[in-house]
């Protein structure tokens, strides 16, 4: 067996917070930025005598996610208790789903630099998050616990071991995040712990004498706080497994060593052992008698499936069919709201009155140019999101601006200035143009006057041009535009200037 025959075999367990207003079993708000232990009640504190009540919205979001991943929704899902002792888990058991999850057998198609990969989804299930334990922050020999996060609805998505490289692992995690955000199922801010990826890494070592594939031990990687760390940690682990295996091929196998849990130190770029097979818990799963099993109404499931929004891959395909390049299609579809805005804009533009043939000739292109250049720039510059932007500059308003530019009533540069002000001042384009008197001058007589003014005031530059310095033309152009207060149609200025200089 050579190193080249070792095939990385990776599955991902992803946990993500569902975008519910309240926790999974009580009415406490899900909040991230509040005083420790301020968003808690007897139920999420696990006080004696309390009972959980399932959050219907969480179940709905979980089912929606499972359906978007093409999962089957079984006729019955039940809730189980997973027991382990830790101070961030007040009941000392976590309510989860063990052997009958609410979604099974789906897939996610993932784009990578080497092509598309289909990753199988083993299961999707709902469970509660634990609190947070903080050690030694107070200098004393004790730890403190914050239970605000306790009981936050958590969706666990387990993939099949269909991932074969670090890049694929990252791409899968990113595609999953995109889908979750698209569906409004979760916000997935990794730094807030709203999405946690745990790759299970192993290498296939070919087949054993029984014909079944053999593997190196499985490493479950934890504390990965970014997609970059997912990629780095998986790459590190693949290399480490390779090294360990080649050093002792007989010993370094799954049969011998089983599964271990490893942490990731991002600063050192290395994984470290947290728990070996011998220390594995017996979670003593049992059905939770306080909750009734989830028996979904088939009509409701069908309706949920029918009302799924357009998913990223479907949207990319539609844009490509509209004639957009794959790259632009993916950029537009990257975020649900950007895609939606593009769709709104391409619907708004043809509805404009007297829109001329530019709409049919280059309408779609103009729309995505504006979005990918200027809208995205504003989002970055103003550190805002598409939702906010859209509420200030709805697609209909941007369509009006586009019309002003495309029909030559203002020039392109003025258009950009107007656009900036539309967002800053929350005003329609036409109002800004009127208030500032920015309507483009296309009257040749007036433009001739601006050009004459520029030529008269810059005799040296005219000389330079005539003596062959072509760059001087740009300066004269600029002077003529300046004379017009930026309102002259640049094409006409250019034509008239050329005529006068050449004439």
């Amino acid at each position, binding site marked *: 067996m050579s190193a080249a025959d070792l095939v990385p075999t990776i599955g991902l367990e992803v946990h993500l917070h569902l975008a519910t207003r309240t926790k999974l079993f009580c009415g406490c708000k899900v909040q991230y930025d509040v005083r420790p232990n301020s968003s808690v009640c007897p139920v999420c504190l696990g006080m004696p005598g*309390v009972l959980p009540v399932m959050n219907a919205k969480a179940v709905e979001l979980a089912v929606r996610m499972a359906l978007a991943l093409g999962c089957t929704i079984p006729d019955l899902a039940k809730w189980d208790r997973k027991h382990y002792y830790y101070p961030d888990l007040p009941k000392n058991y976590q309510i989860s789903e063990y052997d009958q999850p609410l979604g099974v057998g789906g897939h996610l198609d993932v784009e990578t630099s080497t092509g598309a990969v289909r990753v199988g989804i083993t299961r999707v299930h709902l469970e509660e998050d634990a609190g947070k334990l903080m050690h030694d922050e107070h200098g004393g020999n004790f730890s403190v616990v914050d239970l605000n996060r306790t009981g936050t609805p958590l969706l666990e998505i387990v993939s099949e071991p269909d991932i074969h490289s670090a890049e694929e692992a990252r791409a899968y995690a990113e595609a999953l995040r995109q889908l979750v955000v698209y569906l409004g199922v979760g916000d997935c801010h990794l730094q807030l712990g709203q999405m946690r990826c745990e790759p299970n890494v192993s290498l296939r070592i070919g087949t054993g004498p029984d014909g079944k594939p053999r593997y190196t031990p499985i490493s479950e990687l934890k504390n990965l706080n970014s997609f970059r760390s997912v990629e780095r940690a998986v790459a590190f682990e693949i290399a480490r497994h390779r090294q360990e295996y080649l050093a002792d091929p007989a010993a370094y196998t799954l049969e011998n060593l089983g599964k271990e849990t490893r942490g990731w130190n991002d600063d050192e770029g290395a994984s470290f052992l947290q728990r070996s097979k011998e220390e594995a818990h017996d979670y003593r799963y049992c059905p939770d008698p306080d909750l009734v099993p989830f028996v979904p109404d088939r009509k409701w499931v069908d309706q949920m499936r029918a009302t799924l929004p357009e998913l990223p891959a479907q949207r990319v395909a539609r844009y490509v069919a509209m004639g957009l390049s794959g790259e632009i299609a993916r950029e537009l579809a990257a975020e649900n709201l950007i895609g939606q805005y593009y769709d709104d804009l391409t619907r708004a533009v043809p509805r404009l009155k007297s829109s001329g043939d530019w709409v049919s000739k280059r309408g779609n292109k103009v729309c995505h140019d504006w979005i990918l250049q200027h809208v995205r720039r504003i989002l970055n510059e103003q550190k805002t999101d598409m939702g906010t932007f859209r509420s200030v500059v709805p697609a209909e308003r941007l369509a009006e601006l586009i019309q002003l530019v495309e029909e030559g009533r203002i020039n392109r540069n003025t258009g950009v200035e107007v656009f900036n002000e539309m967002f800053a001042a929350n005003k329609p384009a036409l109002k800004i143009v009127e208030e500032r008197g920015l309507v483009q001058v296309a009257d040749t007589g007036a433009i001739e006057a601006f050009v004459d003014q520029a030529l008269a005031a810059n005799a040296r530059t005219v000389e330079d041009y005539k003596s062959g310095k072509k760059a001087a033309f740009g300066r004269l152009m600029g002077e003529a535009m300046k004379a017009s207060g930026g309102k002259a149609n640049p094409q006409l200025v250019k034509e008239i200037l050329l005529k006068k200089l050449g004439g």
Partner: protein
Amino acid sequence: MAITDLTAREMRDALRRREFSASEAAEASLAAIARLEPQVKAFLSLDGDGARRRAAEIDKRLAAGDSVGLLAGVPVAVKDNMCTADGQPTTCASRILQGWKAPYNAHVVERLAAEGAVIVGKTNLDEFAMGSSTENSAYGATRNPWALDRVPGGSSGGSAAAVAARMVPLALGSDTGGSIRQPAALCGVVGMKPTYGRVSRYGLVAFASSLDQIGPFGRTVADAALLLQAVAGEDTRDSTCVSDKDRPVPDYLASLEEPVRPLRIGLPKEFFGKGLDPGVEKVVRDALAVYERLGAKLAEVSLPHSTEYAIATYYIVATSEASSNLARYDGVHYGYRSPDHSDMIDMYMRSRAGGFGDEVKRRIMLGTYALSAGYYDAYYKKALQVRRLIRRDFEEAFKTVDCIMGPTSPTAAFRMGEKTADPLAMYLSDVFTVSCNLAAIAGLSVPCGFTGDGLPVGLQVLSDVFTEDRLLRIARMYEREVQWAARRPPVCEAAS
């Protein structure tokens, strides 16, 4: 007649007629408790001030002619495994919850307050409701008012004894495998375990969640009906509690005096087999003869799984759930924490070792074992399968009979300490009661006479799910024919 000799219903009606005040009723109850408590030891905490305050409020409402609830001014005791946010502790008779004050009220406690009941205190129990004698209390055993050297039964022994000794006319208990019915039988009072889901468990500290159910104690069937009426019904905080839409709560008192005719009574031969005390059997057979005289048809029915496997099934299901439910008592967030420990795991171990009593530890270990990897299928899963067979036994039986009768307990009250050294003998006290919880049906114990030693005996009546109204009527038919409820336990005679 002393106020404390009145039944709850008589007291409630007298209060409405303003024959005496709620404050007088509270004082009478508190005085009886003060007089008898040193011998009976039914209470873990008393709230005299709170009771007086609540009684005064009821008096004000009565004086103003305001509407008052079903139980306005009636003193009630609550088993100390139900949360009260009144500043009194909720201990479950465990050291691990010593002094713990619940920050919220159990649903039933809210219901009692809404119906104007005056809670006077919290009653003793076997620690976390695990036991059949109330001897497993970290705060001392309760005595049987009929014989102070004997147990009151358990686990709701404090509630049963408090009602039997006429300290309060009503008390709430909880029944996981007979913990209301068995002490009711041993103390000569009426006790009912309603259908699983009839009464919200919110705020009842869980022992075995799929079996636990809160129910009433009273000296008469009507009083039990009255208290059930007050606490039954929907509560969205308990997912296993039925909705009023699906299962409306009937007016239990309205139909109580209507006999059930024709009445077909099933007698499982398994309930009259070995282990049944002959004195108890005789009293129970006499009671059955009363029903026959009233025109009831007695027929033998078979519940093949319900005695032979019931105890084994029960002790797997109940201990498994208990091991899970009691995991939260770890010394971290509330309750007892061992003062000396070297690290976190050590703190867990010492806190639990020092906080729980032997019987609780025994059940946690049994349950932990039953749920462990490799044993789950053989124990817990198998137990759930047998549980379904037990349920089916009853479904079959209820196709041909209206109710099932037998002794509530195989013996009358036993001597204190008699069974403490032998857990299995103690577990067999529940042999006739556990199948009712496993089948989730309704069950009741009604006093049916006394043994030659003067110890009370209970007749257990079981009926199908959500037929509490009929169950109460069946018990009432018998009660009208006998005078057992009029007898006063010796401890009351001696005192008055």
